[in-house]
């Protein structure tokens, strides 16, 4: 069961590679096929010198698969724990992700769901006309005993070239790995406790309040 799960992630990553066709990606794939491969998820491989556009992270959440899957599938929920996503709204079959950018600006990414297997996996990718090329997939697998569900998020992004691209890259996720890690932890908090922990002393001291203040 577990093995199948990991192959699933690797398979998706390979799929993303075909879509992206990036050089770093090819290098990673060839490394994978050079032997010495193990059962660890691809995104835990020691990184080559260049920026690695894949990021991934797994958390265990003490809730059932279907509850977590349902919550995520309703994309409008994601901004509740994804810090740099202001809003995700429906536009026909597509969804528009409104992502924070510096100086109060936003970047819009138009995505479509490319795979949706009930209680197992949801994958999405950007479509033409987006500011950023991106793919993402979340998978849900039973954890042993009553530990709940293992939730893995794998993402790939490729900002456009040039100075605009750099600004957008920065905007999209200043530190993508850190951001994804924090987002998943906030997802876990929300699902397990019904709220997102903050050590703020007053409402205007929360991160959210401070961010909104900075944007004005």
């Amino acid at each position, binding site marked *: 069961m577990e093995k199948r799960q990991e192959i699933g992630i690797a398979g998706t990553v390979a799929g993303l590679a075909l879509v992206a066709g990036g050089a770093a990606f090819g290098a990673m794939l060839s490394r994978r096929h050079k032997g010495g491969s193990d059962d660890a998820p691809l995104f835990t491989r020691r990184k080559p010198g260049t920026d690695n556009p894949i990021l991934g992270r797994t958390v265990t959440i*003490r809730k059932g698969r279907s509850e977590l899957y349902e919550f995520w599938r309703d994309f409008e929920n994601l901004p509740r724990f994804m810090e740099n996503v202001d809003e995700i709204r429906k536009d026909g079959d597509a969804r528009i992700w409104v992502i924070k950018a510096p100086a109060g600006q936003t970047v819009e990414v138009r995505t479509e769901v490319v795979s949706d297997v009930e209680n197992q996996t949801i994958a999405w990718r950007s479509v033409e006309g987006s500011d950023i090329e991106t793919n993402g997939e979340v998978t849900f697998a039973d954890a042993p005993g009553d530990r709940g569900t293992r939730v893995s998020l794998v993402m790939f992004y490729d900002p456009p070239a040039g100075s605009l691209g750099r600004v957008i890259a920065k905007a999209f996720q200043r530190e993508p790995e850190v951001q994804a*890690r924090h*987002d998943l932890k906030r997802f876990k908090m929300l699902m*397990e406790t*019904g709220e997102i*922990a903050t*050590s703020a*002393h*007053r409402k205007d001291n929360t991160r959210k309040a401070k961010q909104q203040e900075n944007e004005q």
Partner: protein
Amino acid sequence: MRALAWHGTHDVRVDTVPDPEIINPRDAILKITSTAICGSDLHLYDGVIPGVQPGDVLGHEFMGEVVETGSDSTLEKGQRVVVPFTISCGGCFHCKIQQYSACENSNPAEKQDMSASLYGHPMAALFGYSHLTGGYSGGQAEYVRVPFSDVGPIVIPDHLEDEKVLFLSDILPTGWMGAENAEIQPDDTVAVWGCGPVGLFAIQSAIVMGASKVIAIDHYPNRLNLAKQLGAETIDFRKTDVREALMEMSGGIGVDAVIDAVGMEAHGFAVDNMLDIAKQKIGMGADRASVLKQAILAVRPGGRVSIPGVYGGMTDKFPLGALMEKGLQVRSGQTHVQRYTKDLLEKIEDGTLDTTFLISHRLPLEDAARGYKCFHDEQDSWTKVVLKPDMSAGEKAT
């Protein structure tokens, strides 16, 4: 409101800061009735715990009256509660197996990375104990915001006065868990390093658990005397070779279990301890582990090592060979307070445990800075300080 804030090493002040507010649904706001200065606050005072920022409100041992509740709090206004210093969500894997001090959800996501890079895993949140543990404001204040107020706080019956129950928030369960981690058996001889509040409660707990002999080690006469009154035998480490004495007092076998209730700022004349003091002072993150090293050498083969004392960084010259060759068991950890509060409250009510004997001073909150200084500098006579926000500054402190 008035609150005790950290400003730097050996610099704490009572400042005026904004009142806390309810932010999350499970929050509650308490009006503090009693709060203590804990021995582990002195590690913050000495500047040896990283991640404290000027203006941080300290204090993790407190109780008070509920004055405001969030929509999902189970507390009610007017209730008197004691609050565990460990903040626990009650819903994660660790909380469900009663490892409350390893709660996965109480430390805000963006603050978890600091301790995760130090320890491999993020720490749970604690009140008033640096941004490694979440950066929550502490309870040495007039008011405090208590997150997850449906999990941690224990409601106190009216007939029990504050001083009987205040220490349920930290030092009493910490001493109890220190003894429990030593796996005390009825015929055991147990040695406890440090007769500060946690050491004294560990001694009391070990005796309640049925140890046949408890040996207390310290160098302050008054603290050794308090240990003696609890029923312990004592060793003054300034006058006696501790390991030799412990061998003799345990009939040549070695003590069955050792409890290090001192932690990272141990005194001690050993050369490496002096080096560690120097390294600690220049911020190299070295813990002074002379007590732990001594305890590992003194415990009998197959014995148990319990570490309730606070450590934060690294130590060198660790007696790894003794640990392995003697086949020792080591248990440690921040206290899983919520696991113990109900049982310990019963033991206070039926008189099995007394918590008031070690309180030496009661001060108004306004005098907190003096309380820190004296608790730090005059450890023999200032054995435990309780701060009372309601007590007026003019009132005679006892």
